[in-house]
């Protein structure tokens, strides 16, 4: 009886719903970089210092990849602008004007979870990207994100 109870307890513990999910490929790659980070469900967050300034910039990685045929990619992004009000059409055109050689802008609409308009700069990376390349992309996103935050939001350093 004691043995049966013990086995049952072990089985329950093994199947417990609180077990952390298996890390995605990008999470494993990020871990190998040994960068200090915080995590919120679905995202890895790293704050970068912008050299020769006192400014900092958060970069986030969406841990779940997006798929299309053979493509498996994760978003690496940085917030650059946020407002409760929709941007004017002129501002919107300015924000989306001209292509980036790598990456681009995306506007998130208000939702129940985030009741603001949010502009992000992002680069999509292959889910199997090498660690050193992931680090370089994160640095590019941080530097670009910071310069865009200054361009669209002034000298404040919110993100």
């Amino acid at each position, binding site marked *: 009886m004691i043995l049966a109870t013990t086995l049952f307890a072990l089985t329950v513990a093994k199947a417990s719903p609180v077990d952390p999910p298996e890390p995605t490929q990008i999470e494993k790659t990020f871990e190998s970089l040994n960068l200090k980070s915080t995590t919120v469900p679905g995202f890895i967050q790293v*704050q970068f210092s912008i050299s020769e300034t006192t400014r900092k910039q958060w970069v986030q990685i969406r841990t779940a990849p997006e798929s299309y045929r*053979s*493509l498996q990619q994760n978003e690496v992004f940085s917030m650059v602008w946020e407002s409760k009000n929709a941007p004017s059409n002129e501002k919107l055109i300015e924000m989306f004007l001209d*292509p980036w050689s790598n990456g681009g802008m995306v506007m998130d609409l208000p939702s129940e979870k985030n009741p603001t308009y949010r502009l992000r700069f992002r680069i999509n990376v292959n889910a199997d990207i090498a660690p050193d*390349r992931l680090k370089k992309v994160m640095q590019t996103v941080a*530097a670009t994100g910071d310069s865009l935050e200054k361009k669209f939001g002034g000298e404040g350093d919110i993100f």
Partner: protein
Amino acid sequence: MTTLLATLAIAKAFQGQDSNPNATKQTKGDNPIFKQAMEDTKFTHTVSKSGLSYVVEFSVKDLPNRIVWVTRETNVKNDIATQSIYTEVWSDKGAPPVDVLVKTVLRPAKKLGNYYVMKFDDGFYAIRFMATFDLAGLEASGETRTKAIERLKDTIYFVNQVGEETEKEIREK
């Protein structure tokens, strides 16, 4: 939430020409590795009149063929080499794409690419959808290269598909 600081000084992390993560370099003309990759996709393609891009045409029922452009020059930013792959979803001469832009970009994002606006000197405006292709793997051989070619093909297919869907959506509004 605990705030932790990754002590990375961005620009100082790199030395030499690529020390600025914002600096972009472009190759001039064809990148032979990428040119071969385009051949290996088996897509029928030509070079655009300007000479800047490869042109891949897709037929669309009852509509003009859709063109997907693939840049010939390779962009290198912070040591990451990419090609831009894009298509046009809207254009007009002399009128900023105000309403169309709002309806196009303020909607659930396509997570594998981005919209952007082009404004030309002659007053011509266009909205394009672009995805970038990371050249990693093209210099390898065997399965790694095969996978990279497959990614290139699927990126072209993806841009074409989003272009078709977006143009249809704009037309129906």
